[in-house]
């Protein structure tokens, strides 16, 4: 019989974290420097990792362990954001950081990797547990996964898991192909598809708000909810990634994954338990319930946009087609807005408006749930006296929840005004919120896939998005159709106006 750790105290301690080694493919890349290593250091600082936790970075550039540690030290210091840096904690953590150079297409890399992992396991007692993190180009996912499988890397007494970043294909067919090839090397239960939006505290808090409280769920349906708006706005442009971006676009880059997942979290049915598969089953069911648009419905229910040049804050901002690496006649959508309907009893007839764009006026991600107005306006006054209630879930930059409702103005007479009741996540709980990568990396090490995307979810959202993308691919849009620094094309306003709605200005 295996021993149980007798010292755990779940009332006061954080979650239990097993020993493991993490292999980062693409260790010299931006994601490793900006997100992964700062998140791992922060977990070490918070005493969340096993003492023997090890990181083995792999990329093409030849480097020694010490050179890699120096590089990671500089990254951690630069990208630690709101956290303190402690030299002693780093020194101890860095002893577990290793590096090997290699080409992911080279079959000889993988037996060497296996040998290195065995050495690390012997020295640091990582229990044979290995987390592979693919911070590499998507085209390299399959060579890596198959190389790992062919050489039986990390296959022994412990577990193996593989984390991959989006994009999970560029359409349904390629997503299915990617999945099939991954499954030739790893079981689906070992594949962790990361969507960093799901790791954000407020997205997780949606579940707490909906299923931890008794007062919201009775209102969470077509009878009381008028419509839902999900906005992910960026104030910057493509920032030198024009060449990549023109192959992706906002619909594929944001709506197919992040915003669909957020929508699924908002609209899913309560799960019977908080076990990973139970939550993911409900999320998946919701995604599969999104109505797939017929070709003749697409242009009525979607808007594709592309920013043009503008003068913002005394600075000339180039249009997308003037960005380096972008074709002068590019038809890429830097803005996408869609109207989705969910074909189930809870949401039938309720529009879900999703929009995402680059070079919008501010960086903000939020969900606005607009409730039906009071059925009768018994107070005389202007339109504010019938303003609908809004529940706003802010994801970034200030995570929090606001409820907008009407209140009587002080004084004689019955004059109403809207007021907002705010809950700010950061300030209501003095603790610093963990970054999305801290949350998700720890979940992967623990083996909790609740916040990770499953293949059936990926396929469901591609099914919906492909129907739109196919029509867009055939159309020729008159781009640019919005100036940088504005809230997107007028057609997006018209799309809502057809149903009597207006976009909220976050």
């Amino acid at each position, binding site marked *: 019989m295996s*021993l*149980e*750790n*007798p*010292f*755990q*105290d779940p*009332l*006061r*301690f*954080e979650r*239990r*974290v*097993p*020993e493991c080694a993490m292999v980062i493919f693409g260790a010299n890349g931006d994601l490793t420097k900006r997100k992964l290593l700062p998140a791992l250091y922060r977990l070490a*600082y918070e*005493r969340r990792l*096993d*003492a*023997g936790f090890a990181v083995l970075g792999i990329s093409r550039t030849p480097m020694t362990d010490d050179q890699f540690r120096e590089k990671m030290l500089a990254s951690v210091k630069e990208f630690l954001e709101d956290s303190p840096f*402690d030299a*002693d*904690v780093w*020194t*101890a*953590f860095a*002893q577990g950081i290793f590096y090997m150079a290699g080409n992911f297409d080279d079959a000889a890399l993988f037996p060497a990797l296996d040998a290195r992992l065995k050495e690390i396991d012997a*020295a*640091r*007692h990582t*229990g044979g547990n290995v987390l592979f993190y693919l911070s590499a180009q998507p085209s390299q996912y399959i060579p890596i996964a198959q190389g790992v499988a062919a050489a039986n890397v990390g296959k022994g007494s412990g577990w193996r898991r593989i984390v991959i970043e989006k994009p999970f294909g560029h359409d349904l067919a390629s997503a299915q192909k990617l999945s099939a090839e991954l499954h030739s090397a790893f079981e689906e239960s070992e594949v962790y598809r990361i969507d960093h939006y799901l790791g954000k505290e407020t997205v997780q808090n949606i579940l707490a708000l909906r299923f931890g409280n008794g007062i919201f769920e009775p209102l969470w349906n077509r009878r009381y909810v008028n419509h839902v708006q999900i906005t992910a706005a960026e104030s910057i442009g493509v920032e030198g990634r024009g060449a990549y971006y023109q192959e992706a676009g906002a619909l594929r880059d944001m709506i197919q994954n992040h915003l669909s997942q957020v929508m699924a979290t908002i609209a899913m049915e309560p799960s019977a338990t908080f076990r990973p598969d139970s939550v993911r089953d409900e999320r998946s069911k919701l995604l599969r319930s999104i109505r797939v648009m017929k070709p003749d419905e697409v242009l009525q229910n979607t808007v594709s946009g592309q920013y043009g040049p503008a003068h913002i804050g005394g600075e000339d901002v180039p249009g997308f087609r003037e960005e380096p690496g972008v074709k002068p006649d590019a038809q890429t959508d830097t803005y996408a807005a869609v109207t989705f309907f969910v074909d189930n009893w809870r949401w039938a007839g309720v529009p879900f408006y999703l929009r995402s764009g680059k070079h919008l006026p501010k960086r903000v991600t939020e969900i606005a749930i607009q409730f039906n107005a009071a059925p009768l306006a018994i107070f005389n006054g202007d339109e504010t006296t019938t303003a609908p209630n809004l529940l706003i879930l802010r994801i970034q930059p*200030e995570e929090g929840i606001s409820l907008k409702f009407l209140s009587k103005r002080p004084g004689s007479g019955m004059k109403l*005004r809207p*007021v907002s*009741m*705010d809950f*700010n996540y*950061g*300030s*209501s*709980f*003095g*603790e610093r919120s963990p970054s999305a990568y801290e949350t998700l990396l720890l979940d992967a090490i623990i083996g909790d896939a609740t916040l990770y995307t499953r293949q059936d979810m990926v396929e469901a959202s591609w099914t919906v998005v492909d129907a739109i993308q196919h029509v867009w691919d055939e159309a020729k849009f008159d781009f640019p159709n919005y100036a940088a620094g504005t809230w997107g094309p007028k057609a997006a306003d018209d799309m809502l106006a057809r149903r009597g709605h207006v976009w909220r200005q976050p």
Partner: protein
Amino acid sequence: MGAAGGIIAPDRILHDMADLWVTLGKQGEGDAGVLRACSMTLVVAAEESDDAQAIGETLAALMPEHPSRAIVIRFRAEDQRGLAARVFAQCWMPFGHRQQICCEQIEITAADASLPDLAAVVLPLTVPDLPVILWCRSPRLFHLPPFSQLAGIAQKVVLDSAAFGAAASALRQMSDMRGMRGAVAAGSLLADLSWTRLTRWRELIAQIFENRAQLANLPLVSDILISYRAADTPATAYYLAAWLIDGLARVGARPRVQFHSDSGEPSARLSRVELRAHGSADAIASIALAAGPCAEVKTGGLVSKALLPVLTDYDLMREELSIPGRDPAFEHALAAAAKLALS
């Protein structure tokens, strides 16, 4: 805001608080106004000589995470009855100066002789439907017979056995209180900040044995060594020993415990804990305070560093206020530590 003379009326204090909110509302900018936040009533019982500024700063730091109506009662050792009160607010601006959040604070000064009158004053001042936590900062107050009436209002009473003098006597008293023979009312929960000080040590130990290779060594532990920076063994050392013995018993180990007073500046802090196997030169695991706020963790030939700073009243209360319900691990450790200290 608000003051009174020898007697105070709860209605008057509540009225002063209502006025306070009106004033704060008028000070709010535009439509933003102020938000009132409350998750509990926190009653603090302290000596008049206790550092008022430090208490105020601790409460201010606690408010964002545990917004509460704070009632601070400051006692002076006088035979003549006398009470006075004032109300004010602790506010902060979390929304980029758009809107401020405020918590209310009531300060009552009381002569010891007025202690029997206090429960009747405090009870109507507590916030309905929310828990009442009593943080007693002075052991002298705890031993005054009418204190039980005040403690009876609270769902949880927080004490610090480190302030009670000798650890053996302190733990016995605490254990008796839990046995409902003392000042804490039947049904009230008890917390000891000496136990809270151990959380990070305990968590580090637990984390070491999440590793299966280390866990396999646990039944081999034959000796526990606990060092501290104090002349006498502090309550934290007894708590840690009791908790370790209990955990090790569950994997079949029956270790001996040795306490050791370390040199260095006396601070009643633990300085080192080691788990050893009979006949082995190296410890199975050890944690020792190192330079600065760090501890050195050694296990299986690996050395790592973890932060283990000196905890402030704010750190300790922040943790205790997060646990409104029963804490079975503490209750078990308290009984065992008291037995160990008296053996």
